[in-house]
Every structure is written in C-alpha cells, then in structure tokens.
C-alpha cells in the first residue's frame, strides 16, 4: 500500500510542478500594454546601481544611470572622439585653450562652460560647481582618485563660466579630466560637502542637469526617470519616461528582450548575441571599435607574493615559458568556436587607432615549437605522466611539477569559462597542467587588504578582459606595466614584472608631441612582445541588445549604452 501511495504522491507532485511552471510562463509572457501616448522605455539590468557616482564602485550600472541625469565637461563617442557636454568647446593648443611651458614641463588648460545649462531646480551650472566637485574629489580623506589627479597642481576659477586647470606635468588625457564615463560635475548648492565625495546623499538622490530626472527608486525592483523639461538641448530627449528594472537572471532578461518586454539589455555576451541574431523584436548593437582584450596575466612572483625579484615564480619567471604558453594557445579556435568569430585576435596593446601603426608580427600558434622551447628551458616530462617537471630549469627545484592554478571570474558567464577550459586543454597538450578555478570578480579584484586574489599575488595565471576607455593608452600602460604599479594598491602590474627600459618609455609617453608618442609606443610594443608579461588573446565584442522599436541606440566601448539617450527615438 505504502508504495502505491508513494507513487501516487510522486505523480501528483510532478503534475503540480508542471502546472506551476506553465503558470509562470503565462504570467511572464503577458505583454505590457501602454494605455497612454507616453513614450516610455524599459531598461533591464541585473542589480541596483550602488549610486549615481561611478567613481565609488564602478559597477557599470552606476555609470549607466549617471548618463541619464548628470553631465560631465566632455564625453567620448563610440569611435573614441571626445565631444563637449558642459564645455562650450574643447580646449586645444590650436584654439589657445591649452598652453604648454616646455621648459618647466607643465601645462594649463582653460575651460569655458556652456551658459545655457541648468540644474533641475532652475539654478545655472557654473564653474562653482566644477570647483566644488574638484575640491570634493581631491579631499585626501573623503575624496577619490581620478586619472591625472597627481599631475594637477591647481584648479582656479576665472569667472562664472571659466576655469583653468594647471598641470605640473604634461598630461595628454586632459580632455576627459572632468568627463568621460566616470566623472560628472556635481551641484555645489545641493550636495553636502561635509559628507564627502564618495558618501554624500546626492550620490543616491542626484539633482539633474541631464536629459532625465530621477523620480523614484525602489531598491531591488526599479528606478523611474522622467523627461527633464529644463534640459539644454532643445526638443530633447524625445522619450518621456525611462524605467530601469532590476532583473537578476540573465536568461529572464534575454527572454524579456526577445519578447519585446524590455527595450535595453546592456553588456550582452556572445551567446545572447548569437541567440538574438534572427529575432524580429530585438536587435544587437555592436560597438564599432574594440576595447577589452581577453588576456592571460602571468604572475612572475611566487604565488602568494608580489616581489618577483625576492621570490621569482618557479615556472613563469622564465620568459621562454611565457613565450611557449603564447605559442601553445590557439587564439583563432577560441575566438571562432566560443565567441562565434565576433572577437578579433590581438597580440599588442597598440591595436587601437590612432596608435595602431606599430609593426608587431602576430605570434604563431605552434604547439611543437612551444614544446621545443619548454624542453630548452629545462622543463621535460621524464616520468611520462603528461606533465613536465623541472630538470635543469632556471628557477625551480629539480623535479618541480609544471602545475599551476588558472583563475577566471564568474560574472562573464559561460563563454569565458569555456575559454578557460579550452586554454587549459591546449596547455595540457604541451605538458603544462592547469587547475581551474572560477571566482567572483569582487574576490579576484578586491584590494590586497581584503584578500583580493590578484593584488595579493595569490595566483599563477589569470584570464580576464581588460582595456582602456577613450583614446589615450598612457595611464592604462602605466597601471599595467610600470614598476610602481607592481606595488599592491598603486596599480595593476599583476605580472609583477619590472622593466626599467619600459618604465622610462612610459614616462616619455607623457607628452603632447604626437610623433614622439607614436615612436615611444612602438618601442614599448617591441619590449612587451619580447617579454610577454601579459599574453593578449582576442578582443571581446562589446554589445547591447535593444528592442526594434527603438532608434538611435549605439553601443560604445568608451561609455555605457545610455551615453546618447537624449537622442533616442521610439518608432
């Protein structure tokens, strides 16, 4: 009897769960109907933005909503061209906005603000606000770090709509000093300076000078924005209402966009790009240029340490091993199979215009040559277990096994995990055994004090995508390759690779002389190619999905998809 009851109970349970599944499907596929003529769109994102100030947490969602309500002096378009937002024009050497003192090695930039921009309460946006923002940022206790901050000597106000930034060095990235995807100008009369830049309330309840005004924010559920009637560009924005809805699950967001229940799903991965290929309700916008390069960071300091001189990595401190790893990875297969050919193979940091003129030959994929190089470096497999051991290698004890931990981060999702597995398989074929770990990005990139895996040097090889915003690679190169940046907390020289020659070249690149910069970059490209502290694989496509009723959406690697939301139109 009991068996029969059990079977019956089981059958009932199965039917009930099937019914409830069907029930869910019916609810979720109910189309949202708009009864008024209001032009409303819905953006779906996975989590609440921490605030409207991307300088604090930089999750991308903060920059996404910042673009709706706050303006910077300038911004960067998808092609890397800087355009003015609050600025009346871009200061250059030609128009006298930039003056250089060659002898002192310093420069000054004079900025003029538009005079027709207002905060939502009707007060004008002035140089007072810029100075207020600068004071807040540079406050040593409650402020933040922004690119170029160390080169700024002072910021002085000339009149209500003019201010001058004095640099103690030549800073080529001056155009996005108070703009770009991260920095906005904050209202002096509204934000409470005593609360400090990273903590003030106006970071979560901003006063708008952008195209939209924050109406309400129900955490974990949605944010509502309405059209800013006082927005300076006449007739813009065309859309009346923007709802930012929190939908944590990737596949639910994908379904919503496929069924026309959402208008924007940002930063979609290659699987979603592929799935939306034939959709009639959704389109995919690909960024016209690439930024993020999937790359292998190889720790040249022993795992758990950060000083490659004091404790060199037993395997990776030998340049021949790094070169062999580069030869053993079949980049085309990874890109074509896992990324549907949407990425582009890259092998030098200098692949983006205008600095893409260096002649660095593409490394060949040649596992046999990789094996030969490993043999030459003293890594052989004498016990025939498929894994090499040190027999006369440069930096490890005799018999040390060629086994390393290989980490990547979880948030990117399946394509990155498959890439990791395939690379491990490719390296396994030449006798390098990789043990795979996938961790949350917040654990991988946390600061050293919080036990961040990378900054505390607690890894052998890491795989993730990195690149720079805008058009100037100098700060990025400093962060990734300078000697100073190898100290945890100073930068991201995760290879802990210290090269005096490259360090000098980075210093040389801080100039406004474009020809000299170009030459310097090519010298750097050669060194990086020889030394292979980081192995570049391929660029990952930057894409956003949007509903086909929306016009004007253009994905950008230099900013979030909402960078031009004031120009969007509904069909």
């Amino acid at each position, binding site marked *: *009897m*009991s*068996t029969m009851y*059990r079977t019956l109970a089981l059958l009932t349970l199965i039917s009930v769960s099937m019914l409830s599944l069907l029930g869910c499907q019916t609810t979720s596929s109910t189309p949202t109907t708009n009864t008024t003529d209001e032009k409303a769109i819905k953006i779906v994102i996975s989590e609440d933005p921490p605030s409207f100030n991307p300088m604090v947490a930089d999750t991308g969602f903060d920059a996404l909503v910042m673009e709706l309500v706050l303006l910077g002096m300038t911004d960067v378009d998808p092609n890397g061209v800087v355009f003015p937002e609050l600025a009346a024009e871009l200061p250059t050497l030609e128009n006298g906005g930039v003056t250089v003192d060659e002898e002192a090695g310093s420069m000054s930039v004079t900025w003029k603000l538009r005079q027709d921009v207002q905060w939502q309460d009707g007060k004008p946006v002035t140089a007072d606000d810029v100075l207020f923002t600068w004071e807040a940022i540079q406050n040593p206790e409650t402020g933040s770090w922004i690119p170029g901050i160390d080169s700024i000597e002072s910021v002085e106000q000339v009149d209500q709509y003019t201010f001058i930034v004095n640099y103690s060095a030549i800073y080529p990235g001056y155009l996005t000093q108070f703009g770009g995807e991260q920095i906005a100008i904050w209202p002096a009369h509204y934000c409470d300076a005593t609360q400090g830049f990273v903590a003030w309330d106006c970071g979560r309840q901003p006063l708008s000078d952008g195209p939209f005004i924050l109406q309400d924010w129900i955490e974990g559920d949605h944010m509502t924005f309405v059209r800013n009637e006082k927005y300076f560009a006449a007739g813009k924005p065309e859309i009346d209402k923007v709802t930012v809805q929190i939908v944590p699950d*990737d*596949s639910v967001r994908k379904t919503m966009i496929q069924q026309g229940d959402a208008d924007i799903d940002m930063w979609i991965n290659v*699987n979603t790009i592929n*799935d939306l290929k034939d959709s009639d309700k959704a389109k995919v916008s690909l960024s016209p240029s690439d930024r993020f390069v999937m790359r292998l960071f190889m720790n040249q300091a022993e795992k758990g340490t950060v000083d490659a001189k004091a404790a060199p990595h037993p395997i990776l401190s030998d340049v021949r091993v790094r070169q062999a790893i580069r030869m053993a990875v079949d980049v085309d*297969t990874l890109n074509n*199979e896992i990324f549907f050919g949407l990425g582009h193979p890259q092998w030098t940091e200098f692949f983006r215009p205008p600095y893409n003129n260096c002649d660095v030959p593409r490394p060949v994929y040649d596992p046999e040559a990789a094996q030969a190089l490993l043999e030459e470096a003293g890594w052989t497999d004498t016990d025939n277990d498929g894994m090499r051991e040190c027999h006369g290698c440069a930096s490890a004890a005799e018999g040390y096994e060629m086994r390393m*931990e290989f980490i990547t981060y*979880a948030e990117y*999702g*399946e394509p990155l*995990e*498959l890439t990791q*597995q*395939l690379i*491990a*398989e490719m390296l396994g074929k030449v006798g390098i055994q990789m*043990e*795979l*770990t*996938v961790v949350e990005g917040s654990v991988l990139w946390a600061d050293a004090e919080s036990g961040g895996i990378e900054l505390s040097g607690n890894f052998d090889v890491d795989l993730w995508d990195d690149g720079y915003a805008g058009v100037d690679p100098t700060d990025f190169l400093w962060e990734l390759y300078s000697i100073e940046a190898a100290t945890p907390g100073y930068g991201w020289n995760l290879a802990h690779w210290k090269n005096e020659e490259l360090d000098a070249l980075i210093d040389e690149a801080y100039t406004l002389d474009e020809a000299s910069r170009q030459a310097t970059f090519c010298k750097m490209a050669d060194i990086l190619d020889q030394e292979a502290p980081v192995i570049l694989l391929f660029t990952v496509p930057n894409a956003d999905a949007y509903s086909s009723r929306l016009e004007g959406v253009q994905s950008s690697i230099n900013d979030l998809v909402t960078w031009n939301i004031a120009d969007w139109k509904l069909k």
Partner: protein
Amino acid sequence: MADLAAIKGTPEFPHPLESQVNLFGNVWRRFLRHKGAIGGLIVFGLLIALTVFAFVSPYDPEASSLSERFEAPSAAHWFGTDALGTDLLTRILYGGRISLAVGGIAVGIALIIGVPIGAIAGYYGGKLDAILMRITDAFLSLPPFLVLILLAAILREVEFPLFQRNSVFTISFVIGILSWMTFARLVRAAFLTLREMDYVNAARALGASDARIILGHILPNSVGPIIVEATLQLGYAIIQEAGLSFLGFGIQPPTPSWGNLLSDAQEHFIRYPWLAVFPGIMIFLSIISVNYIGDGLRDAFDPYKMLEKVGEYT
C-alpha cells in the same frame, strides 16, 4: 534446555528467537519482500556499476571536440554532446563517480563523528550527555547550506594534503561535518533504551568494560536505524554536492559532477534541453533508489514488522 530446531518457525513466519540469533539473515529476507527496495537496490547497483565501468566509453570525459558542440542525442552520442563537444553520457558516468563518492565519504564522515558522540552521550548520560547534546543542537541550528558555502569558500584557499582546493574530499568533509547530528541523536536514543536491557546488565555483572559493552553489545543492536539513516543521508549528500557545484563552490570543471553538469546546462536549457535533463535524471534516480533502499531497510529492521504476516508487505 529447549531444542532450537523444535521451536523453529517457517520461512514465511520466522520465530522471534530465531530472528535474534540470525538477525541479518532475516533482515535480508524481509528486505527482499519490499519490492520498492529491491527496485531501488537494482537501480542503485546499476548506477554504481555504470560509473565504475565508465572507462569502457570510447570518449574522453575532459577532451573537447569543437566540431561536435551541442549535438542532440544520437547513435554516436547517446546523451548528446555539451558546449565543448564532449560526450555527455561519458561525462555523466564520470560525474557519477564524483557525486556518489562525495555521498559515500560524506556519510562516512558523518558516521565517524555522529555515532561515537551519540553512543557516549547515551551510555554515560548525565552532564556529559547534556554537553554533547547541546553541541549537537548548536550544529543543528546552523543553516546548513549557508555554512556549506562559507566552509567551501574557506577550504578552497587551504593547501593541505587531501584538502587541496575543491577536491572530492574537501566537499565531502564540508557536507559530512554538517550532517552527523542526526546520527548522534539516533544513536543516543537507541543507547538510552538498550543500556537498561538485561543482557547489558549481565555483561556488566560479568565485569565487561564500558568499551566492550558499547562496542560489543549495544552498538550491534542499534545498527538497524543507523543503516537506514545512512542511506537517507547518502541521498541528501548527493543533493548537497549538486547544490554546491551548481553554485560554483563544489567540484571545479573540467572534472564533471552531476551538480556542475546541471549548472553548465543553465544557459542552454531551452535550446539544448538534454544537457539538463540527463544529469537531472541521474540525480533523481540515485536519490529515489537510495530512498527506497532506506525505506526497505527501515521496514526490515523494524522489530514490530518482524512479527507481522508476510501478506501485509505487498
């Protein structure tokens, strides 16, 4: 002295005294009458045999074959292929080794911790009992899955023999040290009753040591409920491994386990349903079969059922 043969019962209706003499033989006979349990035993045995003989598969569980990604089930690939073109059946069989091993080791660890604690608490009673049982209660009050995730995250950083990264042993250990409490309670309850039995008093009067009484006299008589509970815990452990791996805290790829196979299937469930369905079926089959085995064992060990008529079993 009575002749044992003279009071011997029939095979269908065994005499109680004979049951005491030949406990396991009768348990086995009664177990065999439980159809669900027999079905469970066959299915579970088959699963173990399949995972043990996984090596007969012509495919490598960890080698990609990119020209065959996401192939539907076919004659060449019975369960289809996954995102890297690896044969799913092969991965499921190798994954079964991991999942079942985790289940087995976890239950072993739970037994090693839980049984002595329960035995000592039940046998000695008093303050010792109170202390040990409060510790048990404290462990019971922990939210198991959250602690599992925390422990798995901590142990991931540990470099120690056996505990290296997310090894099978680490995961089993994490699950085991959070599931010994039921054993402790069960064994304690059995000991509280059994320690008052005449044969225990007799042993004590003959001068047997506490250890001898516990190990030689009481424990063998409480083995029934322990075995039953062990089978049920085995099922839980398999589910918990699946849950941990599903969340990324369990067995790391490319090593397959039923949990991480299911986790990998998430993104493709709509397009390639077999990726989720087959590992799901394996977890389902193993859990339901050990549950039926446990059910059968419970009935077989039940002293009251011993005296019941055979007919009531159907």
